[in-house]
């Protein structure tokens, strides 16, 4: 089943007089359980595409369907609801809420979902253990390294059992070794929980982890290949 289906999606940004075409008719579908990389040079539209799939932004035209929801017709608050229950995000940096500890950051999403406190705590601890942060529940983001922060972000993105996790250059701020271990954790979660991961990157090494690789250039999909996996 297709968990994400984009048809002829376009997006144009206007800044003063300059018109930038960030996406010009991108179509793709991604199956449930995928581990997909979106690659392309800077400015090719990777972030824009992920934002539109995640319901953070609207497409100008075309159709976006995520887990049966047609995003292009939904209101802001419906999108917020969708993000809460169906989509997990991992950003390049500053992912976490600085005043909350690692554990609380993970708990926060479940709090929004209305999960009872005891269960919340249990699940948050379990997932932090899964990403290898067993002893660091009570550390604030400022007391964690960049790699550890990204792992908390990954933990947080999947703890709510979303349909997809969108990660926009999750390793861009990490050295290659830390980046690789983050990718391994993501891979493990993908396999263990069956959650679809879509992540963008410039990095050849990161692309190697993907089972499917989509190339963007100038807002168009120029290559889409399944890798042996």
């Amino acid at each position, binding site marked *: 089943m297709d968990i994400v289906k984009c048809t002829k999606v376009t997006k144009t940004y206007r800044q003063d007089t300059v018109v930038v075409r960030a996406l010009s008719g991108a179509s793709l579908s991604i199956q449930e359980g995928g581990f997909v990389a979106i690659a392309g040079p800077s400015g090719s539209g990777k972030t824009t595409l992920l934002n539109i799939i995640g319901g953070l932004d609207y497409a100008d035209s075309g159709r976006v369907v995520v887990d049966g929801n047609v995003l292009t017709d939904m209101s802001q608050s419906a999108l*917020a609801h969708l993000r809460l229950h169906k989509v997990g995000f991992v950003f390049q940096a*500053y992912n976490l809420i600085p*005043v909350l500890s690692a554990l*609380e950051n993970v708990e926060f999403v479940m709090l929004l979902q209305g999960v009872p406190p005891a269960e919340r705590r249990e699940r948050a601890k379990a997932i932090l253990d899964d990403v290898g942060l067993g002893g660091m529940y009570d550390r604030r983001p400022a007391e964690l390294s960049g790699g550890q922060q990204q792992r908390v972000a990954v933990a947080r993105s999947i703890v709510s059992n979303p349909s997809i996790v969108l990660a926009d250059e999750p390793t861009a701020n990490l050295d290659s070794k830390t980046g690789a271990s983050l990718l391994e954790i993501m891979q493990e979660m993908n396999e263990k929980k069956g959650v679809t991961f879509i992540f963008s990157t410039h990095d050849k090494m990161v692309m190697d982890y993907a089972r499917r690789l989509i190339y963007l250039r100038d807002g168009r999909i120029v290559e889409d290949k399944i890798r042996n996996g």
Partner: protein
Amino acid sequence: MSIDLKMAWRNIWRHPRRAILTMAAIAFATVLLVFMLSWQFGSYDTMINAAVKVHTGHLQVQAAGYHEQQNMHLVVPDPVSVSRLLDDIPDVAAHTARATAFSLVSSHERTYGVAVRGIDPTKEAQVTTVGQVIRQGKYLSDDDAAQALVGGLLAKNLRVGVGDELVLLGQGRDGSIAATVVQVAGIFSYGQDELDRNVIYIPLPYFQEVYSMQGAVHEVVVLGTSLEAVPRIKRSVSAELKTIDKKNKLVVLDWMELMPGLIQSIQMDLISGFIMYLILIIVVAFSILNTFLMVIFERTREFGVFMALGTTPGRLTRLLLLESTTLTLLGTAMGIVAGSLVTWYFQVHGIVISGTSEMLQQYGLPERMYPQLSTLSIAVGAGLVLAITLAAALYPALKVRRLRPVEAMRAV
């Protein structure tokens, strides 16, 4: 503690210096308001009590029209039954009857026109302070007849002292000439020129005889157990009066009707006070608005993360409001504590504003004034500050609703 509250608390202390300055500004306004309101309320009490105790009492029973015209023919004909009626009304602490006639008073050398008042020496002393302001000689006693108390300034103008004789010349109630000679028994001084220059007291029975009052008086003055009891007393007296005053010639006037200037001057003081407080709090509100606004500038990206996680704008607003409310409440609480302590100190020790005692005396007020800390002054003071500073906090909290996730995420 819920996560929301935890977040609010920790966010406040992300910038301790800023938080403390903001709370200090709020506390400052609260201290000032609590103190000033306590001061105002306290001085109103003092003013009312002083005015009531000097002359008018809390209530008076008079003939209709007497208060406006001061016409000596408008009388309470049967004060005895009025006073019997008053004896049975709860909350009445004391009452006394008085009569007043305008007369010429002459010493050997001088003549002046004054108000001659007949008072019941014992009962009058229970209602007003006249017994306590005798500076020379002595107060009247119930057996005195042709004895008088003279105001200090009047005595000076007449060039008389205790023991000297004065001739009173006026008109009796029946139109006859009222003339008599009285001896100065005592000299009083309230410090209010108006009274000290224009009033002579003589015993009421003697007054009634000289001015042919036929047992009548002009006012029956009532002192209640407290200011709050006045409306109650007024209601019962009005109701009871109907039984003895079939023709409806008598009225009951409370201190506000007897001294409309007093209550209006209190209203005026309150209004001008409130205008000043309002301006002050608005200045404070703008002073601290930047603290709340900075949140929007500094934490935009953080709000983007919140929104990506699926936080609704409504919830984000609530989070921000919780934060600003906590900050504001802390400031107000500090202000209430400090304000109460300051007020309480002055409530115990009193305040003398140098150079004002002469002036206050003219209005019958003591030179040392005491603020009166009350739940009302605390509630009104803190309430005003809270309301306006929270209104300032509302602006950024509502502004965040317009934020779109993508824009927020792009901010750094």
